[in-house]
């Protein structure tokens, strides 16, 4: 009798555990629809709402087979890394770029998206350079959600107060920054507080603008060393630029992008040097409600090396989208990615969230006149960037195109800026990290710049 009771208890407990586990498992059906998950970074509430309205509600209404759910997570990169390692995680994998995706693809954690690319015609639709950057051994593993450039945001009101116009070349730009410093303002505002990889923006910018994209490409192919004189000069120039106070002055390590945009809106500086995705921070301080939208402008960074074309872009991607190899709903995940690779999606997202959704379409058919607020200059900036990319006038953003340990080594550029090591020593460390990763096949395929 006792044994029988024990057996019944054991079976009940096992059944309860099984029910709980099955209830918690991913990929379940919800109301007859297959559930699809996307983990996204912890965007501010207003932007989460845009995501809900345009992506989630839009996608869910567009078909009746899948139910998309987006989870916002401040530690998304780390959590995705842990989840994918355990063959778990979301159906759609949000990552920091093609280099991120290639590291996971090499370990079999991402699904080959080539069949979906053929089904949906992605190759015809996406910018060639962006499509190729997501391939490993000819197979597609990721697509960027947005392209970006590293440029200059300017406050027209402050420029007018300084008695200068929008700079048209690098010398004018430096003159204007010197005038701002002489007037007791920041020469420019930016900073890496809370996110050290911000440094990657400036090492990428100077390598692109001084050494040029072709030199970076050659170094990434291993045909020239990272200690090549042109790259050493680029690093040294970035150090001179930093030490002249042109990157947030003494406050570089105590400012972040949001605070920098705030200072720009408070007329504390004429310039903010940073990625075009910073439009999303700008919209907090320059908007139609405060009536200062027209005060903000954006321009490509003035070309430093006079042998390079003008304008010259530092091409990057904001994030990448892939399909989890362990997802039971790969078709659904591909459908979501396809939904995000359309100009109708880009049009809607950019109405209220400028900066993050420059979908890398060959035909970025957005008309700036259809937009209000900062979406207008953002759309213009991205159309110009795409034209520049199509002409091959670009270098590379480290965080997007470089393998992870090499990117981490380049993030230490502040060691040169603060005089702890020379540009040569710094690049010798980069070379070490790069050699190791190249031997492991972790360098992602790169679009070849023309110039």
């Amino acid at each position, binding site marked *: 009798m006792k044994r029988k009771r024990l057996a019944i208890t054991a079976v009940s407990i096992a059944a309860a555990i099984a029910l709980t586990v099955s209830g918690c498992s991913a990929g379940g059906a919800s109301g007859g629809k297959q559930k699809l998950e996307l983990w996204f970074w912890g965007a501010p509430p207003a932007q989460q709402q845009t995501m809900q309205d345009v992506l989630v509600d839009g996608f869910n209404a567009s078909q009746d087979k899948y139910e998309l759910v987006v989870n916002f997570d401040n530690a998304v*990169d*780390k959590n995705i*890394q842990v989840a*994918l*390692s355990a063959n778990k995680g979301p159906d759609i994998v949000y990552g920091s770029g093609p280099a991120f995706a290639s*590291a*996971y693809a090499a*370990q*079999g*954690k991402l699904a080959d998206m080539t069949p979906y690319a053929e089904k949906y015609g992605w190759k015809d639709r996406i910018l060639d350079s962006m499509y190729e950057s997501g391939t490993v051994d000819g197979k597609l593993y990721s697509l960027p959600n947005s392209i970006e450039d590293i440029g200059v945001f300017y406050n027209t009101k402050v420029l007018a107060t300084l008695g200068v116009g929008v700079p048209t070349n690098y010398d004018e730009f430096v003159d204007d920054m010197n005038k701002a410093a002489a007037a007791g303002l920041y020469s420019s505002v930016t900073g*890496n*507080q*809370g*996110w*050290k*990889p911000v440094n990657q923006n400036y090492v990428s910018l100077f390598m692109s603008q001084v050494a040029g994209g072709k030199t970076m490409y050659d170094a990434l192919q291993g045909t020239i060393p990272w200690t090549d004189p042109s790259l050493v000069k680029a690093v040294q120039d970035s150090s001179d630029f930093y030490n002249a106070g042109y990157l947030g002055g*003494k*406050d*570089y*390590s*105590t*400012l972040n992008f949001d*605070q920098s945009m705030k*200072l720009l809106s408070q007329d*504390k500086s004429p310039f903010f040097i940073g990625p075009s995705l910073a439009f999303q921070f700008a919209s907090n301080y320059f908007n139609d409600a405060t009536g200062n939208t027209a005060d903000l402008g954006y321009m490509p960074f003035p070309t430093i090396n006079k042998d390079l074309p003008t304008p010259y872009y530092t091409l990057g991607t904001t994030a990448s989208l892939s399909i989890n190899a362990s997802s039971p709903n790969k078709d659904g995940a591909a459908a979501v990615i396809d939904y995000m690779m359309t100009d109708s999606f880009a049009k809607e997202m950019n109405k209220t969230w400028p900066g993050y959704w420059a979908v890398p379409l060959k035909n970025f058919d957005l008309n700036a006149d259809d937009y209000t607020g900062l979406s207008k200059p953002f759309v213009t900036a991205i159309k110009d960037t795409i034209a520049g990319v199509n002409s091959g006038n670009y270098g590379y953003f480290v965080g997007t195109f470089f393998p*992870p*340990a090499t*990117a*981490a080594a380049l*993030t*230490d550029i*502040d*060691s040169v*800026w*603060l005089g*702890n090591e020379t540009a040569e020593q710094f690049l010798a460390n980069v070379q070490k*990290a790069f050699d190791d990763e190249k031997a492991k096949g972790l360098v992602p395929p790169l679009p070849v710049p023309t110039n």
Partner: protein
Amino acid sequence: MLTTLAPDTGRSGKPRPVPVRRGNHFRKQTATNYLLIAPALLLSIVIVVIPGILTLLFAFTNWSGIGFNFDFVGIQNFQDIFADPVFATSLTNNIKWLVLFLVIPVIVGLLTAALLLRRKKMRTFYQVIFLMPYVLAPVVNALVWQTIIYNPNGGVFGLFGLQPPTSSQSTSLYAAAAVDMWHYWGFLTVVYLGAMRQTPVDQVEAASLDGAGGWGVFRHVYLPSIRPTLLLMGVMTVIFSFLAFDYVYLLTQGGPAHSSEVMGTYAYAFAFSSFEFGKAAAVGLIMSFFGLLASVLYTWISRRDLTR
């Protein structure tokens, strides 16, 4: 029901059971004991032992942290780490951190506890106030300091035209340590006060009658009385100091230019920026080594005290 840890031999006064019955009873009791400790044991094995063994294993591999493809690389990770000047900076910073934490919060905590000892009415109120930073999440404490104290635009440092210490290589470590100590000393105060209140009152009164002053009573009565607590908290401080991570990561990210790097942030960068989990595991082992040293020292001192 009254329970006791004392053996019950002869307590009930009943005749001893026959050997066979006693064996059965013993086996049943042993099975019950194992069953009772099973959850804790299982948790320890799953959360501590297995990851510990895996960390030891991965420290000798080139594991990327993704999947389970890796090669054994011998002591290559340790060679790379010891050759890296950032490791030397991290280790030095951990030692500086340890010295700071063994001195400043301990002195402040002891002084405050001694003062609170005499303040019977408001003692609880002050303890709650002092303990508040300890119960707040590190991210909240860090944000408060970053925006209100260390902010060059609108913060206290900005108000006085001073450069925030987080922005300088020579002060960034101390800036992070200051916030961590601010959050930690209240906890030490409460622990020390609790220990001081266990000091026999007759000893305190006897010392006072013998003419000992405040310092004398503290030095010769309270201090010896709370010695085990001081020792335990000292060992815990050593262990925590080599595991320091949150406030450094939140306030300086180990910068500028690695100036405030500690081994915790150094390992984190390997694991989550470079995808070099093998090296991160090697750094983790080195961190654990120092904690182990402190634990062994504590055990040795405790045993020596017992055998005195």
